[in-house]
């Protein structure tokens, strides 16, 4: 194992400031709440701001493809801030998972459109699936293919310009891309409206093959490991902000003449929660640094995968606990639409299932740490 530096770099802190102030100005909690009342709320200004102006769509694109060539750690900081703001930003689905697939498969033209913020892509797998597999039929013919089937609950498929389909495993893996116009993506009302889902139907949809075989399988694995790491960072952001909101509230709110933060039962629960959130933060930073080291050729993908599963399974549970505890500490106010807590609860609960729930992730981790059931 390499020595992993866990303290924030100056670049990361600058990036954090940029994305935080962008989200504060363009995606405050009232804006996020408006997506629940009107799913068609216009988010194009926000899209342009993060993807193009701040250049985050190109963050993980290598410099040789005119991207920023940033590290996974830098992307994790962005994701953490998105979690803190429960922002309706397609960073995870388009700029991380889809972009990683496109970069790794050398789909240069697609990478360029994504990096420029001109287009967004979504990987067509069910939001709650532990893998990126689309579960549809892909019939190849040279560089082209035809796709048939339905994928329920695809993250941010509505409004995406390209839908990436993953089929098969190992040497039989195929990754193909379908233009949005050639598929039907029906968005539905989601528990968490800050990350909308859609049912996607492909009916003899024409597709372009981006990769196949072992190379495609490697790309899918890389996108999964990186995606899980970035998602864990988001979950940590949700957890930390929920905790902060609760801490602020209990320091102010008085009942029986004392702040409720002076009651020992509350204090002890907050101490336990602080520990859990702090550990989640450390695990996430560690996973992101290891993934960065792997990207730089200084670490194995096995280690990056292991750390992503540690961070993912841990942060996913902590985020839900933090949002639930924060709501309870707000008492009746926590149950109101007016307070922003519900936005965190909904995001945390939906995030908990993305790329597999915690127990499913632990089952993936088990063989990597030689604690097998059979």
């Amino acid at each position, binding site marked *: 194992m390499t020595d992993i530096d866990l303290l924030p770099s100056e670049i990361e802190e600058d990036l954090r400031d940029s994305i935080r102030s962008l989200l504060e100005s363009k995606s405050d909690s009232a804006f996020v709440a408006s997506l*629940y*009342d009107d799913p068609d709320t216009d988010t194009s200004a926000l899209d342009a701001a993060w993807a193009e102006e701040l250049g985050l769509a190109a963050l993980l694109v290598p410099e040789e493809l005119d991207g920023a060539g940033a590290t996974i750690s830098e992307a994790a900081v962005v994701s953490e801030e998105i979690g803190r703001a429960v922002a309706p930003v397609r960073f995870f689905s388009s700029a991380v998972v889809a972009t990683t697939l496109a970069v790794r498969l050398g789909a240069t033209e697609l990478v360029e459109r994504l990096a420029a913020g001109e287009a967004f892509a979504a990987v067509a797998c*069910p*939001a*709650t699936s532990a893998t990126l597999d689309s579960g549809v039929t892909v019939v190849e013919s040279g560089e082209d293919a035809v796709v048939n089937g339905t994928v*329920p*609950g695809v993250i941010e498929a509505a409004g995406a310009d390209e839908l990436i389909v993953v089929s098969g495993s190992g040497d039989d893996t195929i990754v193909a891309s379908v233009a949005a116009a050639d598929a039907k993506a029906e968005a*539905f*009302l*989601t*528990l*968490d*409206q800050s990350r909308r*889902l859609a049912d996607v139907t492909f009916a003899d949809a024409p597709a372009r093959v981006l990769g196949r075989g072992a190379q495609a399988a490697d790309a899918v694995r890389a996108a999964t490991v990186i995606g899980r790491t970035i998602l864990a960072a988001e979950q940590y952001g949700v957890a930390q902000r929920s905790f902060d909101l609760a801490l602020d509230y209990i320091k102010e709110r*008085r*009942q*029986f*003449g*004392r702040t409720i933060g002076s*009651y020992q*039962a*509350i204090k002890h629960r907050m101490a336990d929660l602080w520990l859990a959130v702090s550990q989640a933060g450390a695990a996430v930073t560690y996973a992101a640094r290891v993934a960065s080291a792997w990207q730089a050729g200084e670490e194995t993908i096995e280690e990056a995968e292991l750390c992503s599963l540690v961070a993912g399974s841990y942060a996913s549970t902590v985020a*839900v606990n933090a949002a*639930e505890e924060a*709501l*309870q500490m707000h*008492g*009746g*106010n*926590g*149950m*109101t*639409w*007016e307070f922003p*807590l*519900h936005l965190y*609860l*909904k995001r945390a*609960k*939906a995030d*908990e*299932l993305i790329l597999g*729930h915690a*127990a*499913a992730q632990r089952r993936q981790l088990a063989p990597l740490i030689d604690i097998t059931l059979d």
Partner: protein
Amino acid sequence: MSTTDIEQELTTEQQAVVDAVNAAAAATTAEMSDQEKYGVQFDHGLAWVNFPVGDGGLGVSTSLREFAADQMTKAGLQPPPRGSNTIGFGMAAPTIVAYGNEEQRAVLRKIYTLETIFCQLFSEPGAGSDLAAVATRAVRNEDGYLINGQKVWTSSAHNADMAILVARTDTEVPKHQGLSYFLLDMHAPGVEVRGLRQITGEAEFNEVFLTDVQIPAGYMLGEPGQGWKISNTTLNNERVAIGGGNPREGGMIAQVAKTWRDNPEYRDPLLHDELVRLWVEVEASRMMSERLSQKLAAGQPGPEGSGAKLAFATNNQLLSGLEIALSGVDGLRYDTYEMRRPVEHSMTGRIPGYRYLRAKGNSIEGGTSEIIRNIIAERVLGLPGEHRVDKDVAFKDLPK
């Protein structure tokens, strides 16, 4: 167990009930409106048999209520649906009969006949668990009292005709001493009701803004400064009687077990164990409630009621959280976030996401789980109360 053996000798009190039922049945005709029929029942003392004669009762013991209900059913007398006036029946009536003067007690008949629907104006943004922190002011003037303030978590306020209200008449004394208890006409000028939107999207409850609402002096229940004492009478009546006789696998566990059975594709050994574990928790809790109801029936009140509320909240929250994971992508579909005002809420009619969100309120409404744990620790286990800093300070001098 509750039906008496027909062969058995009736007690004097039972005989009084039987006589009243017979008389009411004789006085009831098929042409009467429901309201008129309820009026006949009230006038014969069958509204609340334990209330005094003249207030809708017969002055018999409270334990005869179930006997009276059985007799009424047998005689074909249909009582009003309590759910149409929950606060009226459950909270206003017992409080008014205990503290009201003759004029005030006149409303009892209208409560029973459903002419006057009640709501409750107790909680405030700054007075939740700590009800004695009520800040709504009631200032004496020549016409009675002028009310100003804001109330919250009021159910059915938009349908209510009258309210029971706690407001502060004196800020110079410690907080528990300066409260008074009022009846309030919800149609009076200055009463504004707004739906309070919840995290589920809908508004089961209301905020009520009271701006220069004039109340006649005669609308005060009891004496000035008795508000805390009287409101505790009301809240003791709020405590839901613990069921007993609940079916196995009822309520939320039934819903989630059904989801499990209907969705084989998302089964998983961990989720399986968690579901069975919660099934066992709910069953153990049900048995504790069953034992409590048997104790109550045997005249041995027990402390398990608070425990049942705590267990209910915890189990509902864990189960509804689990159900989402058991539903795959469908667990993330939501039906509507539209701001609606439901007549009543049901945990089983909608989707897992709604249940998950709504169940979060189970550990807050009717006493937070933190307050319940205090109650168990102090009243059941005999541990010391929390340190209080607000007992001997004038309300106006308390930090807000």
